[in-house]
């Protein structure tokens, strides 16, 4: 079951369009049409996908194969484009 958040009125929110909730609460992953899949066998752990991701949606500890945070990955495909060993594939996201 999805929890519906009650939106607040104009008197209750900060002025100037300053965000009053963390961007962590906006799950932008739902915008995605295609999602990146990282092939653990091909990955050389260079971290370029982690560097290039414009949304910090790739998590990497510096050693293991990076992981995609699908809550925030918008499916732009930059990681797939930048991967030097073609270890990332963009596949149709069926939701």
């Amino acid at each position, binding site marked *: 079951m999805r929890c519906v958040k009650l*939106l*607040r*009125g*104009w008197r209750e*929110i*900060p*002025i*100037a*369009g*300053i*965000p*009053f909730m963390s*961007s962590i609460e906006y799950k932008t992953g739902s915008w995605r049409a295609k999602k990146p899949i990282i092939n653990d066998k091909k990955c050389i752990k260079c971290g370029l996908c982690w560097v290039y991701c414009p949304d910090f949606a790739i998590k990497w500890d510096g050693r293991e194969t990076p992981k995609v945070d699908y809550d925030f990955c918008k499916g732009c495909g930059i990681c797939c484009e930048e991967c030097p060993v073609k270890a990332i594939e963009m596949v149709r996201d069926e939701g």
Partner: protein
Amino acid sequence: MKGKQMVLGLNGDEAVAYGVKQCNVDVIAAYPITPQTIIVEKISEMVANGEIDAEIILAESEHSALSACVGASAAGARVFTATASQGLALMNEILYIASGLRLPIVMAVVNRALSAPINIHCDHSDTMSVRDSSWIQIYSEDAQEAYDSTIQAFKIAEDRSVLLPAMVTLDGFLISHTIQNVTVLPDKDVLNFVGEHRAIPEIEMEGEKFPLKLDPERPLTFGPLDLYDYYFEHKRQQEEAIKKALSVIKRVNEEFSELSGRRYGNGLVEEYKLEDAEVAIVNMGSAAGTTKYVVDKLRKRGLKVGLLRIRTFRPFPADDIVKILSDLKAVAVMDRSMSFGALGGQLFIEIRNALYDLKNRPLVINYIYGLGGRDVPAKDIKKVFEETSEIAKRGFVKKNELIRFLGLRE
């Protein structure tokens, strides 16, 4: 303690620069354009001479100048800029950003006609074209008022209940380049009046208070994406703020009059010999001075005429205008700008709209005048009074009398 005031020979632009100097402004970003140039020149001179401790940014365009102001103001600085005509048009995009981010920037706009054809002289087309941008607009009648309004504008814009940018306008050349005896306050009095620094408001989020400024210690995001879920609410807040400015402008006008002995009506509108008047002219800017002269002349001949000068066009003081105009027989609204294809000039549209709900309302007609600096001599103002008096006597407006062009060759 009030100090002694001093009389200086200043033109309108110099008067504005003098006011800015006394308000302890932190950042000035501007691009020179006729007839505003003297303001930027004077302020640059003052900064170079060490008379103002401010950062001056001479940008490569007005778009950049106002963008720099937005950044500086978001960082908590007291900020000033000035422009005219094409410069204001180029700033258009950033005007909405400054007001949307609730930044109390003060800008002097020296009213000048818009191209094409190119023209450097006065009309109000430039500021009228940005009347919907959520900036406060105060129109000055002379250099003295341009000086006084500049100082007041900081106090109004920075008020906690307002927090919106403000424009102080002065008619190009007619005020900007005309030397007048301007009475100036002592520096200390102005500083006490506006406050040494901009007071940074706090906003509350999830029970925690944040100063509303860019601060690495308490980071905030200014201007993020705001879609259909909250954009509308933020715009409603802006509308509330600009409406609140009505009472703030009145209050600041009173406080300023205690300090200086000068007042401009109730801050929003100025009545001139309207108590027993039957016919009145409504206008803004320097033409009001000529109108007062004509009112005096006609009063000597026993004609019951008067003037209502709109000082604050945004927020629009509809309640005051309705109260003042309701007892009149006929009113001529004079617009120094054209809203092409509309039913009259911008001021006319608003005033006629405001009067609609009255049971007994005056007849209202419109004159478009003075475009591109076309002179408005006393005889033209007299003609407006004569024609409006005739309509008042007749009791109705003929179709071809509703909107007319004053001083235009047929």
